[in-house]
């Protein structure tokens, strides 16, 4: 197998699986079919590591930057599919979904994976835009899966805001094309990443600046940056929990990847304004705002949705600062956040099934009633709050130190935001985990394996980061400028 | 010799507008009547009305000040001068250097000012309501008019009406969307300024809806005649203005011969008749809007003027 076969497989597998799952009756078979397809996709993506990379084509390419994203994406896609397979059956039993809905859900899941993978490996700004649109649409459908008032409202809000975001991103894409067209000529060549990167130095800088503002606002809406975040908590809270995990762990990353790509383009043009300050500002606003919002949440999924906004803020802040150290920290934090946050949502899904509710007030004493789940949650929440020795602590520590050297005053704001979030999460965690168990106590269906697997990875990276990974991240960080 | 000829032509122009104005009003009324299947008064009825009013005694309110007595003449004079400045059948008349669009707007604005003052002078509630409504309309109509003037001036490169007419007849204009917007805006302003449906109803004396009529309710005799004549002149002015900017064909060039002047006059008459008929048809086919909706209606004109100017800015800077 060559690398271009693997690259094709990353796209063809989910697409074919989507078609097959749409036709397959019986939710058990399709749930495990979903897992199998996701695993094969992950295997194909992982093989890209070892195989020699193909030359970038007109549509697809693979390089140091996107391979991080694609491997992470397919991995979390696989674990979430595994969790979903163990989890979704109970949703059917309690009548939240119908078998037809489920068939649709599994097909959509693979279609979404296809959209995200395509966005990550596309070598073409137009194709990337179409792929992100596809991924968004499929998630909209899945957020509305339960057909309740709240789910429909959340889907509608997500849809409208996401559409506006995608529209602005398209305008930005058109502007990038217009900037490239005098240099690279008409048609396809002016939309290919690898061409754009080589020609970027001679683009019209003013045009690139405006284009980047549109792209940042457009894709930033999908990253969930404040003040364009309004869709995010609703979409996380009202959709099925595996989808919340995928949204937080993957879709936000895909949008972030698009922003980073365009940031690279900006960096390659000497006349263009540095995108840093814009990203730093948006990141800090998101961080502080979301951290403050954590305090008044009453719904557990909403709580962690705001925490996602907070972490996206940290990541965008880190990339905005730039420099090898900050970029390294940003990448690491992105990976750690994906793993930890999806682990948390796996736990939350099981909790919601046990308690029959997402209300924070009704969830108590989990370490007593369900030790494996409860301690897993404790571990995950402590990690996401930034306690050592987790990987999140390491990346947050790196973000703070690099911001100390670059912008000491803003570090105060950053640390304030981090502490606020830390306090809120810890306060909630004591409620969830300790004390007398209360409320309903249904048996647990969701598998705990994905949760513990993710946490093991996070702890392992936090304690001892493999040298290969360090080298690789350093290469990418240097690339990001 | 030439000067005398020019002065004569200018005199003819002043007479033509004065003589034709009540006729236009009569025509509009007649067409409206026929459209609603009424016989209607003859077209010449406004002349008879004016003659009768001139003979009648003036009745003044006890607390009317000198302003109330002077205003009709001021209004009439300002409107007449303004109307005489608009090219009707010929351009390049003696006074055409003053025939500036901004000057015309200013003259009409001062006429409006005196009318509103006179409406409030006696202190009846009707007059006050009318004046305040008139000022509300004016506050939007005048900027709208000015913006239209600007976009026309940007197209033609001059605010002098003679030059505008010259540019428009030369065919250099091509396809201009801003010109279309200016036309629509000018029509809306004309409807509002002449107290026509849907902004105001010239034929009503219903207190809730009146604007113009409420202000002049206290007038009688020759004062009323002056005001009536002034409003007829204003209607003619707007029709002539729209005609000379947007359908400038037939207007005699400077120094044209007698035949050209006759053609110019004939085409002017045709334009007046067409304009009057179209106004009547429009008024019959639409209902009066509530006073509170008027700012939105006029706002559309303002916006069109603004947009037209912006669009011109785009196409000129390319």
């Amino acid at each position: 197998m060559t690398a271009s076969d693997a690259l094709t497989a990353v796209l063809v597998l989910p697409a074919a699986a989507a078609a097959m799952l749409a036709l397959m009756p019986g939710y058990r078979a399709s749930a495990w079919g979903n897992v199998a397809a996701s695993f094969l996709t992950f295997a194909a993506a992982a093989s890209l590591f070892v195989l020699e990379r193909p030359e970038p084509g007109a549509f697809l390419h693979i390089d140091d930057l996107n391979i991080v994203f694609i491997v992470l994406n397919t991995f979390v896609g696989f674990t979430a599919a595994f969790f979903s397979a163990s989890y979704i059956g109970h949703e059917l039993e309690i009548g939240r979904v119908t078998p037809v809905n489920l068939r649709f859900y599994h097909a959509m899941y693979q279609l979404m994976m296809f959209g995200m993978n395509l966005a990550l490996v596309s070598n073409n700004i137009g194709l990337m835009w179409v792929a992100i649109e596809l991924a968004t649409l499929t998630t909209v459908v899945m957020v509305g899966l339960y057909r309740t008032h709240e789910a429909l409202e959340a889907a509608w809000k997500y849809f409208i805001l996401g559409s506006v975001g995608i529209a602005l991103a398209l305008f930005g894409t058109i502007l990038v094309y217009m900037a490239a067209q005098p240099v690279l000529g008409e048609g396809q060549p002016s939309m290919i990443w690898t061409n754009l990167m080589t020609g970027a130095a001679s683009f019209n800088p003013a045009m690139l600046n405006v284009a980047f503002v549109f792209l940042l606002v457009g894709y930033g809406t999908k990253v969930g940056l404040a003040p364009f975040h309004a869709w995010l908590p609703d979409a996380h809270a009202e959709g099925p929990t595996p989808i919340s995990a995928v949204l937080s762990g993957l879709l936000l990353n895909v949008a972030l990847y698009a922003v980073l790509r365009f940031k690279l383009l900006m960096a390659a043009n000497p006349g263009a304004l540095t995108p840093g300050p814009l990203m730093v500002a948006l990141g800090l606003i998101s961080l502080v705002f979301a951290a403050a919002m954590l305090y008044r949440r009453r719904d557990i999924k909403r709580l962690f949705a705001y925490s996602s906004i907070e972490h996206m803020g940290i990541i965008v802040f880190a990339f905005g600062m730039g420099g090898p150290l900050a970029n390294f920290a940003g990448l690491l934090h992105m990976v750690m956040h994906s793993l930890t946050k999806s682990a948390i949502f796996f736990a939350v899904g099981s909790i919601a099934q046990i308690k029959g509710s997402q209300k924070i007030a009704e969830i108590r004493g989990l370490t007593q009633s369900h030790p494996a789940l409860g301690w897993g949650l404790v571990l995950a929440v402590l990690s996401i709050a930034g306690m050592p020795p987790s990987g999140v602590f390491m990346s947050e520590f790196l973000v703070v130190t690099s911001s100390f050297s670059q912008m000491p005053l803003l570090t105060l704001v950053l640390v304030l935001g981090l502490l606020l979030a830390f306090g809120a999460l810890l306060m909630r965690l004591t409620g969830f985990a300790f004390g007398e168990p209360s409320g309903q106590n249904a048996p647990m269906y969701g598998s705990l394996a994905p949760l513990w697997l993710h946490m093991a990875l996070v702890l392992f990276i936090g304690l001892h980061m493999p040298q290969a990974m360090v080298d690789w991240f350093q290469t990418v960080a240097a690339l990001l400028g | 010799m030439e000067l005398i000829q020019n002065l004569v032509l200018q005199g003819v122009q002043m007479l033509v507008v004065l003589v034709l104005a009540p006729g236009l009003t009569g025509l509009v009324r007649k067409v409206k009547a026929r459209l609603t299947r009424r016989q209607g008064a003859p077209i010449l009825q406004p002349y008879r009305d004016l003659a009768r009013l001139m003979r009648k005694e003036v009745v003044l309110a006890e607390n009317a000040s000198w302003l109330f007595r002077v205003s009709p003449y001021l209004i009439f004079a300002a409107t007449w001068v303004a109307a005489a400045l608009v090219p009707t059948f010929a351009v390049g008349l003696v006074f055409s250097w003053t025939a500036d669009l901004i000057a015309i707007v200013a003259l009409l604005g001062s006429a409006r000012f005196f009318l509103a003052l006179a409406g409030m002078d006696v202190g009846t509630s009707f007059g006050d309501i009318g004046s305040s409504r008139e000022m509300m309309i004016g506050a939007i109509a005048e900027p709208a008019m000015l913006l239209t003037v600007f976009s026309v001036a940007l197209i033609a490169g001059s605010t002098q009406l003679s030059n505008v007419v010259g540019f428009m007849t030369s065919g250099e204009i091509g396809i201009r969307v801003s010109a279309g917007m200016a036309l629509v805006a000018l029509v809306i302003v004309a409807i509002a300024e002449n107290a026509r449906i849907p902004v105001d109803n010239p034929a009503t004396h219903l207190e809730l809806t009146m604007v113009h009529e409420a202000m002049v309710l206290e007038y009688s005799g020759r004062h009323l005649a002056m005001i009536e004549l002034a409003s007829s002149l204003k209607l003619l002015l707007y029709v002539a203005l729209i005609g000379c900017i947007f359908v400038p064909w037939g207007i005699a060039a400077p120094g044209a011969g007698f035949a050209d002047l006759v053609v110019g006059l004939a085409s002017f008459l045709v334009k007046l008749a067409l304009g009057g008929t179209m106004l009547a048809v429009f008024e019959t086919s639409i209902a009066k809007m509530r006073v509170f909706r008027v700012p939105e209606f006029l706002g559309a004109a303002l916006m069109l003027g603004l947009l037209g100017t912006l669009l011109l800015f785009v196409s000129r800077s390319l």
Partner: protein
Amino acid sequence: MHDYAFDIAHLLASSLVLVSFMLIYQDRIYALLNVFALQALLLAFAVAWQAWIQGAHHLYVSAAIALIFKAMIVPWALHRMVQRLGIQREVETVVGVVPTMLVGMGLVALSVLLMLQLTEAAESAIAREDLAFSLSVILLGMLMMVTRRNAVSQVVGFMSLENGLILAATGAQGMPFVVEISVAFSVLIAMIVIGVFLFRIRERFDTVDVEVLDQYRGERQ
């Protein structure tokens, strides 16, 4: 003599901006839908004109999509839907029409100034002004989405925003994927329209007033 290629492109593109203002001005749903159909029709002409002067035949497909799908099917479907679902016929605004118009004027001025300055180097006058006008249409569409309460008028706002995008994409000389993008957007719009119908927003929420939706927001106790 006059450059009629430019004049007509200017006429069509600026008519789109004008119709965007007309959309803001409407206060009845049916009238709104009719005006939207008009805008889609103008867009179809504008795109076809671009296809003609650029000699880019694939753009005719985009024009046809705009004509058939957006000027006919979507307004008709929404019309039916408003009728069948008994959605209220008035457009409810958050901000009054006149201030909205003034803000809209400001946005148009902003986008014109920004885009003309930006594209100073570009050689094609048509592309430059198409970009300026399309940004205006986009911003006006967003303004409409922000200042309207009904879901249907928000959808119309989004579709007019998207009209601006198609105009920009066709104006950019030789840009690939224009047809694909218009297809993608058509899918998106179809989903929105089907979504309004399928989810029976009327049935679920009694009105399509998003304000009412907001009562369900978030933190349920």
